[in-house]
């Protein structure tokens, strides 16, 4: 006798087995994720994206944790830089959970400064820094990148002064005395005989400088060195200055035409490192942190490199610049801002960290009183026995102040575009006279200025606020501003 199929069978038959398998997988995995206990940190959470910094921080965090109760203990979590940036922004903009303390790099921090100053997600540290005398204790230019609209939102980690690294084996073998070099012109004159075509194919196989028109980091660092700026005190763009135009024209002649002296040997790339190892590059613009990177990535160059102050743009000018930087910030959502502030000072103002950051990463502390630590005078075998730390520190007070404008990245991109365009003009016309290139350099920087200004101007949050009524009587007064 035929029995009607049960309801379960009918249901099962209504879809293919694959559908049921997929459904089962979805249910099981959802249950697993739901049941999984959330990762819980006891105490304060500290995010950083700088893997290289963490070994130096670990013993200091351990020391802090030994003497503090569980709720004030610090847990350091290393995040990918992109992940930290996204978590920071979503925390600041949407209120998702963020750490109690975070170390962020310059370009990331700038993104927190796009909106109204009262909506910046970091705690305003200005008054604390002033009241505790830290504004005098820390190298003043180091605050620039963390200051927006007159308020400081981070404790600086570094100074990042820039020197010039050169292949001492090649330069000294040629009998060149670098102490006689003061300006960029002097350097080019002294080093030009080293540019050679070794294989006779009509192409130069060794260049004076590692630089290219696409390298905006170095181009902007050299503009800052010359006294150029990209934003004024009110964060208005001032890209199209005469100083910037002159540097731009000179840099373009370095990369193109018959005056070319540079080669494209990008940092952090196999190609660039190969060119450095084979001696295609004689000199490189070197911030302190890059010295640490070279020691790890290019050990074969140990003893073949020496440092000297950057050649100046004009006699008696600045012999350094600044590149990169990190800060320690306390999010407003921090569960214990006072404990975080105490920890931030213990960490960044520690002489042990200053010494270890230099030993491990060649990074110079911004705390001026630690510049006399003996570690900075130790001869460095990598740099031919020079006291590399002292050479960087000698220039640290002179580093230019940088802007924290959220449009800094945009400004750098537009300046790089201008440099690329000017190099293309040289390649097209063959013109390499800086004076004759100046009008075109000015025109390109005017365009860059206009581009950045348009973006800054359309940001309604950065416009000066109109006067707003603060009391009922003001609201009824005829002068009260009516806002849409």
């Amino acid at each position, binding site marked *: 006798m035929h029995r009607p199929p049960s309801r379960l069978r009918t249901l099962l038959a209504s879809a293919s087995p694959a559908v049921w398998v997929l459904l089962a997988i979805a249910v099981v995995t959802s249950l697993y994720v739901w049941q999984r206990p959330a990762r819980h940190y006891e105490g304060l959470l500290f995010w950083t994206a700088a893997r290289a910094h963490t070994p130096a921080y670990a013993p200091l965090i351990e020391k802090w944790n030994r003497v503090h109760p569980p709720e004030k203990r610090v847990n350091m979590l290393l995040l990918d830089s992109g992940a930290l940036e996204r978590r920071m922004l979503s925390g600041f*903009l949407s209120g998702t959970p963020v750490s109690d303390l975070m170390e962020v790099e310059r370009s990331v921090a700038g993104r927190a400064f796009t909106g109204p100053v009262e909506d910046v997600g970091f705690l305003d540290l200005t008054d604390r820094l002033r009241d505790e005398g830290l504004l005098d204790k820390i190298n003043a230019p180091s605050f620039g990148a963390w200051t927006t609209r007159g308020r400081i939102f981070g404790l600086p980690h570094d100074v990042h002064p820039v020197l010039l690294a050169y292949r001492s084996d090649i330069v000294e073998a040629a009998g060149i005395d670098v102490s006689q070099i003061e300006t960029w012109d002097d350097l080019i004159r002294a080093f030009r005989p080293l540019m050679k075509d070794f294989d006779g194919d009509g192409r130069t196989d060794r260049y004076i400088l590692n630089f290219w028109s696409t390298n905006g980091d170095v181009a902007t660092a050299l503009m800052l060195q010359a006294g150029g700026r990209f934003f004024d005190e009110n964060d208005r763009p001032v890209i199209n200055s005469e100083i910037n135009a002159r540097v731009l024209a000179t840099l373009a002649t370095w990369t193109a035409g018959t005056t070319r002296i540079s080669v494209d040997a990008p940092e952090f790339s196999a*190609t660039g490192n190969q060119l450095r190892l084979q001696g295609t590059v004689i000199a490189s613009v070197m911030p302190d942190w890059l010295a640490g990177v070279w020691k790890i990535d290019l050990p074969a160059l140990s003893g073949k490199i020496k440092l000297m102050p950057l050649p100046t743009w004009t006699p008696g000018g600045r012999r350094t610049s600044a590149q990169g930087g990190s800060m320690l910030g306390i999010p407003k959502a921090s569960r214990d801002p006072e404990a975080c502030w105490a920890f931030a000072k213990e960490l960044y103002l520690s002489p042990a960290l200053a010494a270890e950051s230099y030993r491990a990463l060649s990074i110079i502390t911004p705390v001026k009183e630690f510049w006399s630590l003996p570690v900075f005078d130790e001869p460095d075998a990598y740099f031919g026995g020079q006291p590399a730390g002292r050479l960087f520190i000698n220039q640290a007070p002179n580093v230019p102040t940088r802007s924290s404008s959220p449009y800094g990245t945009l400004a750098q991109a537009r300046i790089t575009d201008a440099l690329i365009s000017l190099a293309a003009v040289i390649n097209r016309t063959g013109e390499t006279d800086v004076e004759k290139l100046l009008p075109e350099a000015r025109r390109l920087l005017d365009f860059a200025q206009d*581009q950045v200004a348009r973006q800054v101007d359309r940001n309604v*949050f950065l416009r000066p606020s109109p006067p707003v009524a603060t009391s009922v009587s003001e609201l009824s007064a005829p002068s009260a501003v009516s806002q849409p």
Partner: protein
Amino acid sequence: MNTPAKRRRFRSEPTWVPWLFLAPFLVTIAVFLAWPLIQSVLLSMQQTYGPRTTRWIGFENFTFLLGDPLFWKALRNTVVFACGSVFLQLPLSLGLAMLLNRPGLKGRAFFRLIFFAPSLVGLVFVGLMFALMFEKRTGMINVALHALFASFNPEFPWLQEYVMPALILAALWLYVGFNMIYFLAALQHVPAELMEAAALDGAGPWQRFRHVVVPEIMPVVSFVVLLSLLGSFQLFELPFILLNGPGPDNSGLTIVMYLYQMGFSANDLGYASAIGWMLALMLGTFALGQRLWMKKEEAK
């Protein structure tokens, strides 16, 4: 045949029952399509600093966009890439398909796999691979060309001064085989008797191609052209990875990359939404144009 009783029972079903069955579809559409679309229209008329700080600015994003040289540059780059896709990639795909469609060709499946294989590789991987290949001095392409022609400059700046040719070349390698499969399938459906009849009537290879093959495969050609245009206008990963951003002087900036930059790097979601709507308008126009053109062709 329905009895009157059955009809009565059908009529007596409550009127909300169809809505109940439609509800999952309607809810899904409302939540995942209609609501985000409405929100993006509103967003395109605002300036935001996260969802909590917003200012209504009307059509300012759109007027700014029309005067934004970077948007026009991104559009120009995208159009150049799309032209490269349509005028280089597709003829090459069709040519390969015709070669593989030759009667008596041995190892057709093998060749098909070889030509199709690049499509199995992800765009990100292709971007990374070509970035290494296009390197100055050490990249495979410059090294090989310099070895073959001593006068070739080993510092030839593919990714600095020839960004669009480099992008089109990388996309060519990736998609030629993919489009070839469509054309091959279409060619295999061209009736053999039509080709024979044309040959008997004295039509040469070009005339057979022009008057028999092309009309027969036209629906597929038009579909592939539309697909290529839509894909080209949504180009993002390849230049983003290959150039590690928009490239020197924004020479590799595409519309979607500009949208991404504005929305997720500059935090300007309102402006990014305005760019998105402009892109949607362009893509809608292409789709509509293709539809009208196909209708006209069918009417012939």
